[in-house]
């Protein structure tokens, strides 16, 4: 037995009126015999029979308004029971379900249309009456949708929901993979900046560990804004959200970490990233180097006086002039006399390389951490040139604009703990160099001076210098002599003429 459903006779029609039946129950029909006439929104249409057989049942009456897809007639063998117990769709060439017309639509005819809403944002029902926002479902009926009449198709368990696409972004940031990938393969979500983003790359020649570069922090836009407003650096936070996502709470916790609270202290976890990670690595590496430290206290009155003189001089106008400048100059002069201080070890050839020039590293404290850019060929610079180079170097470092080249190839480093008000320290060497000089703060101390053959105690400006050196490359004598030379120049800058 075949059941014929009302087809869509003309491109998107939803219903038709049964105008007249041309057959009755019991009639024999052949394929293409006209069964009935219907009226649609467009026209009067005769419908031919898809089947041959006997009319078993006529399911709708003349004058009925019938939806497309409704069964209208059953045709088959006279012996069949005409009330639907037989399968409706045998698969021997009978028509498939009427497809033309409504595409996966639920029962289409329903009171529809919401009217106008005079104010955007407020909601009206289909008659223009304002709708109680607590009961929004009622008015949705106006759009032809009946609650309960539609449902979503069942999905399999664990149906993959697309995860955030951040993996692609990280692929494109890996620096140990070749950059030349076809553009189509990676959806670039970030503009690649020509200027460094503030995270410095490790100096070339340094082992970079496993070769991973730091991931940009993951945070949604609203979290970023909060971080920005609170002055929290996202790179210093470990996110507690999925995949390391930094949450709003993470930012708040980081920001309020310094505030006094009567809540119990919350452990803060700081991921090793960027500059901090580099410092960790270089310091660990320097454990392999046998380091000895010597120190000396110097009366730097002469230096202080010299600085006052320099500041008045025209060629130093606009430049920052500090004890560090004199120390830097003194170190370069002293290196000329004690060249092993400015050396490195070529492990492959087992040779000590005494460097031809001084690439003077200045350890700088920045918001991102400790970095050591160096001034190339500082030994060849006059005092003014050196002052300029120092100023520039310090500014670039503070702004995070130092280039990778600036960190490469240092030969000697000065670290200034004096800016923190610290007397002295035992500095740790920059790997690849032979020595590092630590300069303390200039303090007023009681000092024994000789006046007219008489010893007296006077307040003097005193500074402590400490030199840590690689005892494989520099022996105690060399180290001490170097330190003494620097001290001599600081005590009496005129002695620089001897160097």
């Amino acid at each position, binding site marked *: 037995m075949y059941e014929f459903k009302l087809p869509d006779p003309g491109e*998107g029609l*939803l219903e038709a009126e049964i105008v007249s039946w041309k057959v009755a129950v019991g009639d024999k029909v052949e394929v293409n015999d006209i069964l009935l006439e219907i009226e649609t929104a467009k026209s009067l249409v005769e419908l031919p029979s898809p089947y041959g057989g006997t009319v078993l049942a006529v399911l709708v009456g003349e004058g009925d308004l019938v939806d497309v897809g409704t069964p209208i007639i059953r045709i088959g063998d006279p012996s069949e029971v005409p009330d639907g117990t037989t399968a409706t769709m045998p698969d021997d060439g009978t028509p498939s379900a009427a497809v033309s017309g409504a*595409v996966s639509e639920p029962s289409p005819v329903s009171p529809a*249309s919401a009217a106008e809403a005079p104010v*955007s944002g407020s909601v009206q029902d289909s008659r*223009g009456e304002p709708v109680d926002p607590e009961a*929004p479902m009622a008015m*949705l009926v*106006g*759009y032809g949708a009946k609650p309960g009449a539609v449902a979503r198709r069942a999905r399999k368990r664990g149906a993959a929901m697309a995860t955030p696409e951040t993996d692609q972004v990280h692929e494109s940031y890996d620096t140990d993979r070749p950059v030349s990938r076809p553009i189509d393969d990676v959806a670039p979500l970030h503009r690649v900046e020509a200027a460094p983003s503030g995270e410095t790359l490790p100096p070339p020649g340094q082992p970079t560990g496993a070769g991973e570069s730091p991931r940009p922090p993951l945070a949604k836009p609203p979290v970023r804004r909060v971080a920005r407003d609170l002055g929290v650096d996202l790179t210093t936070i470990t996110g507690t959200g999925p995949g390391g996502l930094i949450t709003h709470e993470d930012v708040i916790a980081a920001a309020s970490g310094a505030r006094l609270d009567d809540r119990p202290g919350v452990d803060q976890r700081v991921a090793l990233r960027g500059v901090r990670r580099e410092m960790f690595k270089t310091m660990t590496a320097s454990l392999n180097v046998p380091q000895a430290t010597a120190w000396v206290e110097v009366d730097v009155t002469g230096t202080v006086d010299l600085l006052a003189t320099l500041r008045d001089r025209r060629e130093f106008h606009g430049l920052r002039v500090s004890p560090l400048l004199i120390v830097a100059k003194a170190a370069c002069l002293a290196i000329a006399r004690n060249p092993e201080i400015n050396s490195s070890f070529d492990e492959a050839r087992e040779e000590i390389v005494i460097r031809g020039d001084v690439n003077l590293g200045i350890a700088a404290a920045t918001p991102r951490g400790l970095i050591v850019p160096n001034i190339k060929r500082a030994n060849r610079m006059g005092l003014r040139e050196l002052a300029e180079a120092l100023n520039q170097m310090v500014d670039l470092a503070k702004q995070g604009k130092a280039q990778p080249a600036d960190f490469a190839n240092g030969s000697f480093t000065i670290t200034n703990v004096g800016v923190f008000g610290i007397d002295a320290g035992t500095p740790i060497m920059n790997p690849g160099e032979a020595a590092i000089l630590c300069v303390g703060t200039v303090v007023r101390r009681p000092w024994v001076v000789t006046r007219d053959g008489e010893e007296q105690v006077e307040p003097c400006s005193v500074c402590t210098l400490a030199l840590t050196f690689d005892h494989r490359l520099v022996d105690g004598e060399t180290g001490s002599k170097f330190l003494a030379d620097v001290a001599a120049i600081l005590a009496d800058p005129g002695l620089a003429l001897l160097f």
Partner: protein
Amino acid sequence: MATMTMVKALNAGLRRALAADPKVLLAGEDIGNLGGVFRVTEGLKAEFGGDRVIDTPLAESGIVGTSLGMALGGYRPVVEIQFDGFVFPATNQILTQVARLYHRSHGRLNVPMVIRLPFGGGIGAIEHHSESPEAYFAHTPGLKVVSCSTPSDAYWMIQQAIASPDPVVFFEPKRRYHERGEVDLDATPMPLHQARVVKQGKDATVLCWGAMVRPCVEAAIVAAEEGKDLEVIDLRTISPLDDDTILTSVAKTGRAVVVHEAMGTAGIGAEIAARIQERCFYALQAPVLRVTGYDMPCPPNRAEADFLPDLDRVLDAVDRSLAY
């Protein structure tokens, strides 16, 4: 208050416009004697005469071009393009002339013309009869682009479009032509270029127009059963977009899903997503997602159900958005 199909609503709106202003005229293929292949203009020639309801030769470019001339001659033509896919012979006239005359003339010549296009799929049609070409026109300065989703909007928006001093491309979702709705024939309509919040919600904003409004509303109903509170906005105006309504909503919900039948690449959804991320960046909890036709010409219509966005695809996107 009357209940009528969208076809009848358009018919009533056109009738009212023709009656109110003797300068309004209709031009198109088969619109007079036949009343249009969808019967939108049924009875209008009998009532207003063949000079005002014009059966034209079979030439879309000719229809639009000559209607432009009539507009400059003081008339207000309403052009019917028989199917979306047949607007392309007319695009030269639309893009180079209709859209530009106001600009070219230093603001002296305006073109109060409406170009009506039945658009979209879902009716089991052959090639060229299921297109969604809104983006080509939205990309063209000088044209306004709108789309009704209900009989009530159809009734009012067609009159407003005819009254507009600017040329309006008027998209009618043919899939909804025969669906009924209530029309208040005496109401004060909302402005033409304003979006409507169909349903308020707080979890995500769903943006749609034309035939897609209904599946989005149905998706919101199902989502509510799952405890998700969607806000559904019928954009109504594609060019200009109602930025206020869109951005206010997304700033509130933090999530947006745009739904349109047209291909995703370079579609209207892309423009909406760009604006949202530019102006609601810090409110966004998830990227703006788009549920669209795939980037291919419309497939054979028996594969259409997979191609066109439907309730399941809308909810899939909502779920993905909420997963961020």
